[in-house]
């Protein structure tokens, strides 16, 4: 945010155009590449019939390209808007420099929020489609294969359906908490994005406790889930909420231990610092043998924290109908889904930053590498969901407390010794 504030202040000061030409060129290049890719794909499809590009390959490549294309489009739009502001000298006319600092930060905060909102909406749109595409391949489902080219319109159809559905508050429910719960869940999911650095400068708020911030926002979701589970006055909901809370609290411990053991090698909680320490291929993943184990522990724990299979007991369809959002419908239901997919990206982003070298990589620009790595992790999450059966409750707890947590402590201890001897 400071970086962007600097841009705005420079523009208001009437200084030169503050944004490097290479940034604009990169975004423009990527956007044109995306348009070309999409056109070629559609033309080939039109000419050759539906099976020319194997659908599996397409379902891997399209989400990435569409997401990066849309985001580069948004960035280009933002740069264009900034250029208009620069040419018309609006900022000077309204005296932006003389504004109090709090008001400047407020404006930046609102802009950042709008950006994150666009990011999450586009992200979730494609994650839902991607997930259904993978499910379609694994289970021979039709919807995501047929609606529009490559089933691209399926999520939009689903979204429209959810928007026009009736919003019901059950008669026996607690109306205040019932309406509050999705808000808390979604606010926590959004807040995590404030700390995620997409590249060295592309971060809303660089904090010296960035890592703790993301983990703490993850634990806020528990309150929302408990609130939803209790407020709907439904036994499935309450059981789902309790299961979810017990599971998330338990799995926060091995997840936290795994992150901590990686942190001993860096010695900072600032995500940008952690990422910088991994430049030149010195990823934390292979900086010590314990880190590999820690990464696997964190990945398993993050599956549990986002309530995904094999840890999706809180929303187990065969036992609990829909778990903690049984009674929710329409737009409120879609908020739960939005938060789930947003959290999937957030935990994968944290894993990428801490273990997989964040945005460092050859040739491609930094944010593209970052998104590429995160999407790979999310893709594995989705494969896992449609491949493995779910745990039983006791297996879930035994696995966490008797296996993952001791292993986490071993990792922490081992990495601390490693940092002492080889660091």
């Amino acid at each position, binding site marked *: 945010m400071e970086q962007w504030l600097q841009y705005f202040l420079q523009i208001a000061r009437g200084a030169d155009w503050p944004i490097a030409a290479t940034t604009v060129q990169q975004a423009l290049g990527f956007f044109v590449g995306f348009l070309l890719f999409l056109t070629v794909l559609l033309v080939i499809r039109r000419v050759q019939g539906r099976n020319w590009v194997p659908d599996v390959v397409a379902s891997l490549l399209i989400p990435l390209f569409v997401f990066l294309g849309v985001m580069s489009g948004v960035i280009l739009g933002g740069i264009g808007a900034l250029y208009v502001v620069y040419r018309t000298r609006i900022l000077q006319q309204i005296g932006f420099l003389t504004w109090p600092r709090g008001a400047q930060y407020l404006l930046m905060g609102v802009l950042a929020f709008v950006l994150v909102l666009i990011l999450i909406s586009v992200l979730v749109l494609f994650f839902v489609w991607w997930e259904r595409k993978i499910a379609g391949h694994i289970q021979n489902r039709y919807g995501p294969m047929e609606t529009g080219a490559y089933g691209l319109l399926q999520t939009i159809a689903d979204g429209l359906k959810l928007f026009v559905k009736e919003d019901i508050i059950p008669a026996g429910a607690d109306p205040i908490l019932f309406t509050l719960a999705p808000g808390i869940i979604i606010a926590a999911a959004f807040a995590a994005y404030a700390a995620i650095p997409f590249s060295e400068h592309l971060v809303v708020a660089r904090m010296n406790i960035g890592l703790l911030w993301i983990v703490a926002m993850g634990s806020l979701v528990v309150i929302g889930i408990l609130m939803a589970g209790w407020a709907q006055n439904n036994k499935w909901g309450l059981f789902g909420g309790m299961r979810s809370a017990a599971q998330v*609290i338990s799995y926060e411990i091995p997840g936290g231990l795994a992150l901590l053991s990686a942190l001993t090698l860096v010695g900072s909680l600032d995500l940008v610092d952690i990422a910088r320490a991994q430049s030149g291929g010195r990823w934390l993943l292979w900086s010590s043998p314990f880190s590999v184990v820690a990464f696997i522990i964190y990945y398993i724990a993050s599956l549990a924290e986002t309530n995904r299979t094999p840890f999706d007991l809180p929303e187990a369809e065969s036992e609990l109908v829909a778990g903690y959002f049984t009674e929710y419908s329409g737009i409120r239901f879609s908020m739960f889904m939005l938060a789930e997919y947003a959290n999937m990206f957030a935990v994968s982003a944290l894993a990428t930053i801490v273990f997989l070298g964040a945005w460092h990589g050859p040739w491609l620009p930094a944010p593209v590498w970052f998104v590429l790595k995160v999407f790979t992790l999310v893709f594995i999450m989705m494969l896992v969901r449609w491949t493995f059966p779910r745990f039983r409750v006791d297996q879930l707890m035994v696995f966490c407390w008797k296996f993952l947590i001791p292993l986490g402590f071993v990792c922490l201890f081992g990495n601390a010794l490693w940092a002492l001897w080889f660091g």
Partner: protein
Amino acid sequence: MVDIWLERVLFYSLAAITIGSALVVTFGRNLVRSAFALFFTLMGMAAIFIYLAADFVAIMQIFVYIGGILVLILFGIWLTHRIIDLDIRAGRVQLVPGVTLGLVLLLVLWMAIRSFALLDRVPAGYIATSRGIGRLLLTTYLLPFEIASVALLVALVGAIVIGRKEVER
């Protein structure tokens, strides 16, 4: 000038949220709603910590009190009542001793805060605190830190021992 005004608005709205939800916690008749109102009290406290440029304390407030203790309180309420029960009521017992004790506590806290010279010290600006806290915890305050952790461990083991007795009967 406007900056100070903005700060005041921010501070007083935070204080209003914290105190208002704390009042709901205290006077609410529905126990579960009270517990959920505690969420806003704790969040408001965390926000005030951030306002005081104590970022590490704020995030720990969220992490420990909301992510841990509040969830435990909710579990406690649900598991000691019938599980599906929207109507878990809070009663008022021992009004006079309670109010007296509260007032005495307020007085003691007030005197303690007044006697502490922190009020005159205004933070110079935003300085990262986590490094300093970690260093102090592992050097100057190592013994209190360890004693606290051992005490927590003892409490944990004790709770398990007490809790298991009923099962073995």
